[in-house]
């Protein structure tokens, strides 16, 4: 019975012809009726004329209906017995945990009629506090990825779980008998119960070594802490307690360790709500322009090879300031004294972090934080962050052993070293020396394709799981759908291979009730379990006790050996962007189409080069260049270090599925091992122009504000003197507002949105959240190249000042829902109108696609469906679907509350009107007033920085009304008298000069 919810594989294959046949067939059926009637020769009977007219009328009517019906008929079958908890048309939310080995997020999964369709942040978590990032938001689409492994396979042949289990078990037993080494290769495991499963596995097969492998690791921090604290761990950082933040290349808002958590913390010290006068000072030292660097108050450009020297100098100055003996630090041109002095002034409320994987650099950072007394204040060593536990050295040794032939079998679970291990084919050739190669993989990847046994694992939304992200901070993951394919979660496979028949669900429950329940204070284990499952999290105040005191011996040792690395060569820096990240999710079209927050480029990675170097080498944007023979398109990046080229990791997947394959180039090959750590920068032997062009899809091609008051900003000092600093225009324009016409009246609600430009970091979570909520189509690189991306919300980015080191401003722009909307009065068919709640609404059915509204929108937020991107149209020629988004499988991610748009209509942000309606109805049913903050549009929900506030402007006490009265508040292009319902708060920078 229940199996019927899910479709078989064959049915899932796209069969457009079939779909398009349907209406024709129906029409033919009616034609048959007509013919039958004719043949019966009823004309002789008394009612023949009437019958004829009836049939005639019916066929004309149905022909008319069919002709106007643009959508093929799809059948929905009602439940015979209503499953518990499910009300058709109403969403259920289940708490779960997203962890892919890299990003952690405590989430709520929105499930509609049995299908997970949206991921939202779980506000109960004290770590992520309801925030999400782009990849978490996009993860729901990966569930319906056509490139997922759909059944177990031996050497490419599909097989049954029984067969594959037997085969693998036999081989494992053989290897154990021969005392040959088995390696279980996984990313960092933060699940305590999984760790127990692995232990059980190791007991059964004692020659098993478990190696955690992180493609982009924090091995340097682990090593440094081992040397200074005696234990390899990552502490908890508290950016919300730091008045001065100095980051040496740590992109903590974008990709470093736990960006969602850090963004939440960071913005606490940046918000100037309710007259707040203070904010943190953020100094960022880096070579390429990162998301975090672009948000910094002061950005210092230093190439990667010289960053260690800067850290050493800061350390040295601090040693001097605190009256300790100094050492001979290598020279640097950076004014490190000023940094040291500022830090010293803020002892105990400052935070210094480094993104480097160099142990020495990390040790010196530890030394700096120690001198500043930050341990125990802004850095908590008693609560550890459990992600990124991979030690690079272990992986390097493994490859060596594999090459020597001393490894018998490798079980690779959710890792892809064939793709992301340094060098071309280094891992792949080593892998060939093993006897047993098993892959526990979710979707098509380079590593799994080189193994004999593919045991497909569930997507996290189909799995049970748990996690301990930080010491004592547990969370649970629960399935929101049965496995769509014949997959099995990894833990289950390991359990089977140990011979155990326990289901992992049971195992997990037993683990929690056995290990966590006793100390929970709950009386009943069942209650404990159901409560925690409901909340998704379980937090205790456990702490790590076995941390030694700080020892600076190792640092003294390290600084004495510091050399002045003189490098005239061009350096290559590798980084992770906010969309594709480490490349695991390269097949996710929402992520591929997400414009980079700095360059605004999507569907490719590229070599970011400095304007000066580009001029010297005669390189222009979109020129193909060769870095050590490897061709890659160039982008001139203002603020890039003169002789550093930055390239994003995660691209150039060879086997990933239709979407992710051959997008960009694989930059992992440039990473290298040095002093036991894997470094993401290296020097380049040669860079030259290839003499070809390679067009990059860029959603924003003009980077200056042209002196217009679009993003208004002021320095902190100016703001302290006058809260309206930088926003003087607002009052002036408001006083000029005059109109001959009657004002719109909003008798009930008047929805409005406020966006704090000081909080927005540009992380793009809102963009994916919006796409997911509103079924925003993916258009592919070609269309983006033609400037036809469909995003309903975009984050504009402008540079100001010197192109060698510009300041960056960002502004999320969506439909401004103008109360005096230029788009509304120009639509000839009134397809876009104003609701009595202040929403500028689109009636897609009515739109004929004149695009006049689009032309007349000063904000250019309206999007036209140039083609049929969603399979909503009747003409097959209209379909443009580079990302397989019209596959039935992928269409399961569509939100049934939001119409998909046909070719030829305009669409745009609706303020998530479906969410407004839902909450209004909830309040009505419960016979109460709608509370402020109850409605959260998808963008506001997704935002980890709480930069977006939505509410009722008619309610004087709503948060949004209060923000609108703030002196920092203004409207975009308010001089046009469009009266937008979206307001912005000025950006305030904590720096001296404007």
């Amino acid at each position: 019975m229940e199996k019927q919810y899910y479709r078989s594989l064959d049915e899932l294959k796209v069969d457009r012809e079939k779909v398009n046949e349907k209406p024709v067939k129906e029409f033919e059926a009616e034609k048959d009726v007509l013919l039958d009637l004719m043949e019966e020769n009823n004309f002789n009977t008394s009612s023949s004329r009437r019958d004829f007219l009836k049939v005639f009328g019916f066929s004309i009517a149905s022909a008319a209906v069919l002709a106007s019906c643009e959508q093929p008929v799809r059948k929905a079958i009602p439940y015979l017995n209503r499953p518990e908890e499910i009300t058709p048309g109403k969403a259920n939310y289940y708490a779960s945990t997203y962890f892919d080995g890299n990003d952690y997020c405590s989430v709520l999964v929105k499930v509609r009629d049995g299908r997970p369709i949206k991921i939202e942040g779980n506000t109960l978590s004290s770590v992520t506090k309801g925030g999400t990032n782009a990849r978490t938001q996009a993860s729901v689409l990966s569930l319906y990825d056509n490139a997922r492994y759909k059944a177990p396979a031996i050497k490419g042949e599909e097989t049954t779980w029984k067969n594959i289990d037997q085969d693998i078990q036999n081989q494992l037993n053989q290897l154990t008998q021969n005392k040959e080494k088995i390696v279980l290769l996984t990313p960092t495991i933060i699940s305590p119960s999984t760790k127990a499963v692995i232990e059980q596995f190791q007991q059964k097969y004692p020659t098993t070594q478990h190696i955690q492998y992180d493609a982009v690791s924090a091995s340097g921090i682990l090593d440094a802490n081992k040397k200074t604290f005696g234990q390899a761990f990552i502490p908890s950082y508290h950016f919300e307690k730091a008045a001065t933040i100095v980051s040496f290349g740590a992109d903590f808002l974008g990709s470093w360790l736990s960006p969602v958590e850090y963004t939440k913390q960071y913005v606490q010290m940046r918000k100037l709500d309710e007259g707040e006068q203070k904010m943190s000072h953020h100094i960022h030292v880096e070579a390429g322009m990162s998301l975090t660097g672009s948000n910094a108050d002061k950005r210092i450009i230093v190439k990667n090879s010289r960053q260690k020297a800067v850290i050493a100098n800061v350390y040295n100055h601090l040693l001097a300031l605190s009256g300790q003996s100094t050492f001979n630090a290598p020279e640097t041109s950076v004014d490190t004294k000023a940094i040291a002095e500022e830090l010293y002034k803020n002892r105990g409320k400052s935070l210094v972090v480094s993104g480097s994987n160099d142990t020495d650099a990390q040790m010196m950072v530890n030394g700096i934080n120690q001198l500043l007394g930050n341990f125990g204040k802004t850095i908590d060593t008693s609560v550890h962050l459990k992600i990124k536990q991979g030690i690079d050295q272990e992986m390097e040794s493994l490859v060596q052993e594999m090459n020597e032939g001393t490894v018998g079998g490798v079980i690779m679970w959710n890792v892809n070293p064939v793709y992301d291990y340094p060098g071309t084919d280094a891992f792949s050739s080593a892998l060939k020396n093993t006897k047993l190669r098993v892959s526990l993989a979710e979707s098509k990847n380079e590593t799994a394709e080189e193994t004999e046994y593919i045991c497909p694992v569930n997507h996290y939304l189909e799995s049970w799981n748990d996690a301990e992200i930080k010491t004592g901070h547990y969370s649970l993951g629960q399935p929101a759908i049965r496995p769509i394919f014949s997959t099995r979660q990894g833990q289950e496979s390991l359990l089977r291979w140990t011979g155990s028949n326990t289901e992992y669900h049971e195992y997990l429950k037993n683990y929690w009730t056995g290990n966590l329940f006793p100390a929970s204070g709950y009386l009943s284990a069942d209650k404990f379990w159901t409560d925690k499952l409901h909340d998704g999290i379980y937090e205790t105040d456990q702490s790590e006790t076995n941390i030694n005191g700080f020892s600076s011996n190792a640092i003294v040792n390290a600084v004495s050996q510091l050399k002045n690395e003189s490098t005239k060569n061009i350096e290559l820096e590798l980084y992770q962007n906010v969309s594709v990240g480490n490349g695991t999710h390269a097949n996710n079209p929402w992520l591929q189409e997400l414009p980079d927050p700095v360059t605004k480029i999507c569907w490719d990675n590229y070599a970011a080069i400095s304007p000066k170097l580009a001029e010297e080498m005669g390189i222009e944007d979109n020129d193909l260049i060769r870095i050590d023979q490897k061709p890659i398109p160039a982008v001139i990046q203002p603020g890039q270090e003169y002789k550093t080229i930055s390239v994003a990791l995660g691209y150039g997947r060879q086997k990933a599925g239709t979407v992710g394959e051959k997008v960009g180039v694989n930059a992992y090959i440039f990473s290298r091992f040095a002093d036991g750590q894997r470094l993401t920068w290296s020097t380049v032997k040669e860079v030259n122009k290839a003499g070809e062009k390679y067009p990059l899809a860029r959603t924003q091609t003009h980077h200056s504000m042209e002196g217009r008051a679009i993003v208004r900003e002021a320095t902190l000092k100016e703001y302290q003197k006058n809260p309206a600093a930088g926003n003087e225009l607002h009052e002036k324009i408001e006083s000029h507002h005059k109109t001959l016409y009657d004002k719109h009246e909003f008798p009930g609600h008047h929805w409005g949105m406020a966006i704090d430009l000081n909080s927005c970091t540009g992380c793009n979570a809102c963009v994916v959240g919006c796409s997911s909520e509103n079924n925003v189509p993916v258009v592919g690189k070609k269309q983006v190249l033609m400037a036809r991306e469909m995003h309903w919300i975009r984050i504009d980015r402008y540079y100001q000042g010197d192109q060698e080191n510009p300041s960056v401003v960002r502004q999320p722009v969506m439909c401004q829902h103008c109360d005096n909307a230029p788009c509304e009065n120009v639509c000839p068919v009134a397809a876009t109108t104003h609701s009595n709640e202040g929403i500028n609404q689109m009636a897609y059915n009515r739109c004929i696609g004149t695009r006049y509204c689009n032309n007349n929108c000063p904000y250019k937020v309206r999007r036209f469906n140039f083609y049929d991107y969603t399979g909503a149209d009747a003409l097959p020629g209209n379909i443009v679907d580079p990302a397989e988004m019209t596959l039935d499988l992928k269409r399961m991610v569509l939100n049934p509350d939001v119409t998909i748009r046909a070719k030829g209509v305009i669409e745009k942000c609706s303020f998530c009107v479906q969410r407004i309606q839902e909450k209004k109805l909830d309040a009505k049913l419960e016979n109460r007033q709608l509370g402020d903050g109850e409605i959260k549009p998808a963008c506001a929900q997704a935002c980890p920085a709480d930069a977006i506030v939505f509410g009722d402007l008619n309610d004087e006490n709503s948060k949004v009304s209060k923000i609108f009265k703030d002196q920092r508040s203004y409207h975009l292009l308010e001089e046009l008298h469009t009266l937008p319902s979206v307001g912005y708060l000025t950006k305030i920078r904590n720096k001296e000069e404007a």
Partner: protein
Amino acid sequence: MYVSPVREPLIKGKKDYNKVTEDITAPMAGKPSKYWYMGIGLSLLALLAGGIGTVITIWYGIGTWGLNKTIGWGWGITNLVWWIGIGHAGTFISAILLLFRQKWRTSINRSAEAMTLMAVTCAGFFPLIHMGRLLLGFFIIPYPNTRDLWVNFNSPLLWDVFAISTYGIVSLLFWYTGLIPDLATMRDRATHKIKKAIYNLLSFGWTGSARHWSRHETLSLIMAGLAAPLVLSVHTIVSFDFATSVIPGWHTTIFPPYFVSGAIFSGFAMVLTLMIVARKALNLEDYITVNHVESMNKIIITTGSIVGIAYLTELFVAWYSGVEYEQYAFMNRALGPYAWAYWIMMTCNVITPQLFWFKKIRRSLIATFIISIFVNIGMWFERFVIIITSLHRDFLPSSWSMYAPSLVEVALFIGTLGLFFTLFLLFIRAFPIIAIAEVKSVLKSSGENKKHSNHE
């Protein structure tokens, strides 16, 4: 009626009524020349290109055009406005010049009006094809329906629908009314049975009785009265598409007069382009004289100067307004990435027509022909400049973008040129391209015969 002896005769070569009929109907008699076949072959080829473009646009979608998120209108609307402009000369000549009793119009009004109809047909094609959902285009008509849906009367696009269709219908009726006596002439002269039957049907039983003439004259005058304001209103309303918007470069109160004079300017240029060729090819040099050409050139220099002043006024107002967006829009026109289009427009529309101040040039057929082509090109670029340069860089630099037409858009434009010339070539074979009856009416007062007799 007294005619000043200084005036040049409007019809040369001492014609009598019969000769006039013979001369004007001559191109319709016999087999068409090989030039005609070549012409229609080329036109049909161009039309075919347009047909292919249309099918591609409908089958694959507007995505096959070069438009994007920032620039919603491209060549499509440029062509619409250009064609509508061209369609202005006919009605101007037949209605306004009729009301002003300008006799010289009689030689050119028929073909100019026909041209108007063809141009309006070409123009009307673009708003249809540029719709995202062509099949639902009927939504734009205010028809009663059970869903209580109504059109938006605030939208200039809706005004366009009414303005253009009214203009098209009135022009058609006006043209046809004028054609009736000539159709009767054709009927009377036709030797072939079927031809005779068709002309008979089309001439509505015209007998040439005094009553018919009287009614015809009255109707013509009334129609002229109706059509005259339309000449001004159509392009005014087309200009509202831009003028009522908020986009810098569009939001300009000068647009209505500027568009109307531009339209007449381009309309006359197109009439000249066609007539200079036609008078030669069809041996109508006696009817369409250098004098006619000069008169039209005078209108071109007038309207061209108005257009030139409008351009300068726009620049001045942009500076004077102090609005940074407006200032940028015009700086960007003159110096931005589409500056080449702007300077083509300036050269063709402002500088070249000023050459007509020289009588020699004004009366030179070759110079007039070349300049008329320049004006046609310049006026096309005027619309391109207004639409593209205003849209491609408006308020928020983040959305700035560039536009280049796709092959499909080019094909559609060529297609309408093909349609225009196909219709014109068919027209010269089917109907007298000079209003025989009207020419006859001025033959006595302005023919060469009459002139000489004045002296005698």
